């Protein structure tokens, strides 16, 4: 049963084409804004798997019976969820995959110390709501921040980050404009005196935010500055409660 080679090549090309078409020709739609209600009761998350599509602008409306730290791995976004109060957890689902969600129940008193004791703690000084493209966030530097360096970043896109060096003496006050673009933050480092008003404008194509402090650790885990939290005791308490599944569009 000898078959001529050109025919074989044709068959091969045809089969390969079908495969490619099958792979690519899936219907695509535009990203949506979606809200998902999430409840965490006795360490059980409902729904167990949150399913969204790539590019969706997702707001998780989280309510928990016990306060704690909600952590979306790899995206690496964390939020403190107070008990019995609905909390918005916003992110843009730009990366596809299945991502772990863990919850670290915490005593709210001890948590308060860890979170607000230091100037570079996460959200310790200022924290914006979600800033849609084209809008701004304004913060005035208080006097008690004189001489301090305040790191900040966009919680939704932590690659956008920078820091504010606050001068010791109050000198020229005025305003400083900071711009978020798709490339980065301009200026990256801000020198300002107490009393200066800083305006962050989101000129990027996606929603952003501004929060003081360093971004939480790279892939998972805790804040770098909070090394004491990595003791054996705490580490065991972070428990996986579910998954985020982001399908390609």
């Amino acid at each position, binding site marked *: 049963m000898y078959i001529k080679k050109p025919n074989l090549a044709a068959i091969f090309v045809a089969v390969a084409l079908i495969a490619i078409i099958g792979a690519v020709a899936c219907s695509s739609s535009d990203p949506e804004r979606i809200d998902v209600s999430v409840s965490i009761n006795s360490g059980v998350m409902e729904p167990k798997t949150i399913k969204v599509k*790539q590019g969706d602008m997702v707001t998780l409306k989280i309510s928990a019976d016990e306060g704690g730290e909600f952590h979306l791995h790899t995206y690496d976004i964390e939020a403190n969820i107070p008990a019995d109060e609905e909390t918005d957890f916003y992110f843009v689902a730009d990366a596809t995959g299945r991502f772990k969600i863990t919850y670290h129940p915490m005593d709210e008193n001890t948590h308060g110390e860890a979170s607000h004791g230091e100037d570079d703690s996460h959200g310790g000084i200022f924290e914006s709501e979600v800033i849609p493209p084209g809008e701004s966030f304004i913060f005035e530097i208080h006097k008690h921040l004189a001489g301090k360096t305040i790191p900040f970043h966009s919680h939704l896109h932590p690659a956008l980050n920078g820091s504010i060096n606050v001068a010791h003496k109050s000198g020229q006050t005025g305003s400083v404009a900071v711009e978020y673009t798709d490339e980065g933050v301009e200026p990256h480092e801000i020198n300002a005196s107490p009393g200066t008003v800083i305006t962050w404008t989101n000129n990027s194509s996606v929603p952003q935010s501004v929060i003081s402090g360093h*971004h939480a*650790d790279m892939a998972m885990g805790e804040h770098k500055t909070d090394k004491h939290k990595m003791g054996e005791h705490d580490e065991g308490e972070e428990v996986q409660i579910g998954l985020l599944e982001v399908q*390609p569009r």
Partner: protein
Amino acid sequence: MRKLKIVLPVAAATGSLVVWPAYAHGFGERTELPIPLGYFLIGAGLAVALSFVFISILVRVKAEGSYWRFNLIGSSWAKATLTSPISLLPIKLLSVFLLGLVIAAGLGGESNPLLNFGPTFIWIVWWVGMAIGVALVGNIWALINPWKILFGWAEGLYRLIRPGRELSLGREYPAKCGIWPALVLFALYTWIQDSYPKSDVPVQIAMMAIIYSATTLGGMFIFGKHQWLKKGEAFSVVFGLLSRFSVTEVRVTDHDACQACSSECLDLDRQCVDCYECFERTKVREINLRPFAIGLGRNETVTTDILALVVLMLATVTFDGFSATSAWTEFQTFMVDLFGSGSSEILNSLVLADTLGVLLVPVAFFLVYLFFSKLMASSVDGQISALEMARIFGYSLIPIALAYNIAHFITLLVIQGQLIIPLASDPFGSGWDLFGTVDYSLNISIINARILWFLSVALIVLGHVLAVYLAHRVAIRTFADRALVLRSQYPMLALMVMYTVISLWIIAQPIVQ
């Protein structure tokens, strides 16, 4: 999700396992989506269809020993750049430095695996990255092996102090031991990767690096550098095997050099390929570009120890993926139900289940392969024994495993591998920022799931086609009669289709996290 509910409390009871329960590979978080059914079916269908298309084309192909080659060090300037000790020195220094850094960071650095250079470097950049790099580009490990470099330096120094004498004891390596020492060490490494619950702990990685360094330097001291690298240094042997797939080879055309070689480096076509001992000894040498996979189809004697290592490698790659599926979690749960969770961090049912996997999967793999070899043997009327069949066709299965390996690990490598960028600036986790990259945050959308699915299926099908081609080459060389060639290949084809479909099936399974 029933499994998750069962496994999580168990994992919680076993302490540190909480962070990565039921997850096998040494270190890192997996995020890939399972490939959808459509991709799976297209891949499986293509594998079957192409097998038959190929067999009808290949039956007309003549057996040829030679293949296309291009000598990269043919011109004198290329020779000077690629082989001069001065241009290679920075690479060698860096390699030795990195070994030292992993040990130092493990012993003196931060104990959180994510904030220490060791785990990301060893499990992701070095092990996953090097395996893929070596298989595609060529055996760079032969160049950058830090133990080889260190021992080479020590030898040079010793010769300066005591001219005419050798550092190594130069004991005769017992021929009957073959590459079994390398195989045992590799099996141990595999167990650590897939079963040992503390494989991501920096200090443990440092200890393992120290122990392995001592073993390797000791082996080279007793038996001589090249002897041990060829027989006992697990990674030289394993990467050497993988690099047979790659597009480069080293070749020695001066057969006088091969006379002095400590091993039988000439193959049955009287070629000296990828023998680094001869390569070091002579100036009549080539670094060649060659077609992919052709290095797996050379005319040579394959001994049982090499076959065992090939089977172990194939099984390991498959098991690493399989152990992240829910089918494996079912088995772990079954073991926990049977024996209880166990109180120790290391001696518990999860580790027992994974250890059984690491031990039994290669055995099962071998038995299945032997069964198909037996079918091949009887299809050629017993001209060749089943074991001999298994030996001569062993290499031809490697492309499937390699393609699957890339599909399985590519996300881990390109996403979690980025961790090395901030870690390079702060290897000890002590707040340094050497290169200003400490605040780098991972680009997690670097590879889209749809592209990844397409790439994975394409790779696995391509690996399958290369495997069929290689096996066919071997068959044509082995059997004079075309009818025998064809008949011997049907069982092999069935096995390869099965192996390919299993590989596809695994990447179609959601990873249990």
